[in-house]
C-alpha cells in the first residue's frame, strides 16, 4: 500500500514537472513567435521582386525604408519596398516580415522615381558608414537614436543626381534631427545636415 502511494505521488510529481516544463517552454517560445528576427534590407529583396514581377513585368525597385524599428546592425523586423511600373504609370509597395509579404498596397501618389542602381550597399554597411560619419556622436551628445533608413536614387544626392543613396535620419527629443546621406555604391558620406 505504501509502495503504491509512493508510486502514485511520484507519478503526480512527474506529471506536474512535465506541465511546468511545457508551460516554461511555451513562455519561452511566445516572444519568438510574436517577433520574427530582424533582417537587413537586401534579404527581403528576392521575395518582394517575385511579387513585383507578378504585378507588372517592367516593375523596378525605386525606394525602400524600414517599416519597424532598426537595431544597431541596420536590421529591422519589417522593411517596405516600393516598385514603379512605367507601363502602368503606377507604384506598388510590399512589406516583408519574417520571410513573408505581410502588406501590399498601391501608392496613391505619383512617384515615377528612377530605378535604384544595382549593387547598392546593404543596410548594415550603410549604417556603419553613417555612424562613423557623425551618427554615433549625435546619439551620444543628444541621447538620440536612429529612426529611419531609406534608399532611393537621385532625390537626396548631392552633386551626382544619378547616385543611389542611403539617407539615415537620427532623432532626438531635444535637438533637430540629423540627416546623413551615404553613397550606396561606395559607402562614402555625401553630406549631413540638421533639420
Amino acid at each position, binding site marked *: 500500500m505504501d509502495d503504491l502511494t509512493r508510486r502514485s505521488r511520484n507519478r503526480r510529481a512527474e506529471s506536474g514537472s512535465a506541465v511546468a516544463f511545457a508551460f516554461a517552454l511555451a513562455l519561452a517560445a511566445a516572444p519568438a513567435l510574436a517577433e520574427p528576427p530582424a533582417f537587413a534590407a537586401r534579404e527581403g529583396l528576392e521575395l518582394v521582386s*517575385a511579387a513585383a514581377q507578378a504585378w507588372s513585368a517592367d516593375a523596378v525597385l525605386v*525606394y525602400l525604408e524600414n517599416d519597424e524599428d532598426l537595431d544597431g546592425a541596420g536590421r529591422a523586423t519589417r522593411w*517596405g519596398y*516600393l516598385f514603379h511600373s512605367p507601363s502602368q504609370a503606377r507604384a506598388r509597395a510590399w*512589406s516583408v516580415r519574417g520571410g513573408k509579404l505581410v502588406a*501590399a498596397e498601391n501608392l496613391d501618389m505619383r512617384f515615377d522615381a528612377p530605378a535604384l542602381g544595382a549593387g547598392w550597399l546593404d543596410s548594415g554597411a550603410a549604417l556603419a558608414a553613417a555612424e562613423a560619419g557623425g551618427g554615433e556622436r549625435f546619439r551620444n551628445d543628444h541621447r538620440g537614436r536612429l529612426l529611419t533608413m531609406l534608399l532611393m536614387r537621385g*532625390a537626396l544626392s548631392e552633386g551626382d*543626381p544619378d547616385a543611389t543613396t542611403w539617407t539615415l*535620419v537620427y532623432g532626438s527629443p531635444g535637438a533637430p534631427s540629423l540627416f546623413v546621406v551615404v553613397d550606396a555604391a561606395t559607402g562614402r558620406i555625401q553630406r549631413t545636415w540638421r533639420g
Partner: protein
Amino acid sequence: MASLRRSPLPRRARAVLALALVLLAAPLAPPAARAQGESVTIVKVEREKPVREKRPTLRFLKANRDFIRARFDRLRVTTLERRAGATELDPRFLRYRELLAEIARAKDSVATAADERERHALFSSVGDLAKLEAELDQMERLLAAQGARLGVLQADFTGRQRTELDVLVTGAALAGVVDSVIVTLEDGTRVVAGLDDTQRQALARGGAFEVFRGLVEPREQVIEIRFAGDGWSQAGSGYVTLEPTRDRLTFLRLDLAQAQPARGLASVVAGLWRHEPGPPPAPTAEANRDEP
C-alpha cells in the same frame, strides 16, 4: 464507330469532353495518383470577406511625400551630360544565335548526305557500306547535338516556374445553372469565364474548366468568387484565403458537386494543392531529312 453514332452528344461536345478528360488526367487525378507532395487541402469558402490586420508601410515616404516628390521633380529639369554606357547583353541571347547557326549547318550536312545517298541506290561494294555507316554515325552525332541544344532551351524556358495560380471548376451544381464564373484577385484583377451547355455537360461528366491561370503575388491573399446564372446571380460572393508559394504553381479547385444557390458559395468545396515540378524530362529530338 457505331457507339459514337449512338452517343447523344454532338461531335463538338464529345471533343470538349475528351479534352476535359485529358486535362483531368494530370492535375485532377486523386491525390494518391499525383506526385508526392501534391495533396489537396480543403479550404473554406467564406460568405464574408475575412478582415486582416493592416500594417502600415513606407511611413516616412508618406509623411514627407511633398518634399520627396519636389526633389524628384527638380531632378527632371536638371540636365547632365554623361557618356551613356551600354547595358550588358544577356549572353544567352548570343548563344541562341549560335544555336540557330549550328542547326542550319547541321541541316545542310544531312541534306547533302541524303542527296548523295539517293544518287547511290545500289551499293556494289563493301566500301559503300562503310561509307553508309559513317554517314549514319554522323547523323547520330548531329542528333545528339540537337538534343543538347534542346536541353539548353528547355532549361532556360521551361525550368523557371514563377508564382502562378490556376483556378479550376469541377462538378455540376445541384441546383441552378452556372453561366459564368467571376474571380477577383486582391489587386483588382477580375476574370470572367463563361460556361456553355457543352462545358456544363463536360463538368457533369467529370471534366474540369479552367477559369484563371496567371501570375500572382506570393503572399496570403483573399480571392473573391461569384457565379452568375439562373439562381446563382443572387447567391452573393464567396471568399477563399490562400497563400501561393513563391515560384510554384498553386491550383484552386472549386467543386460544384454539392453546390446549390440556397446555400450560397459556402456550398462550394474548395481544394488547394501545389504542383511540385519533377526533374526535367530528357530532351528528345525526332529527326527527319528536313529537321535533323
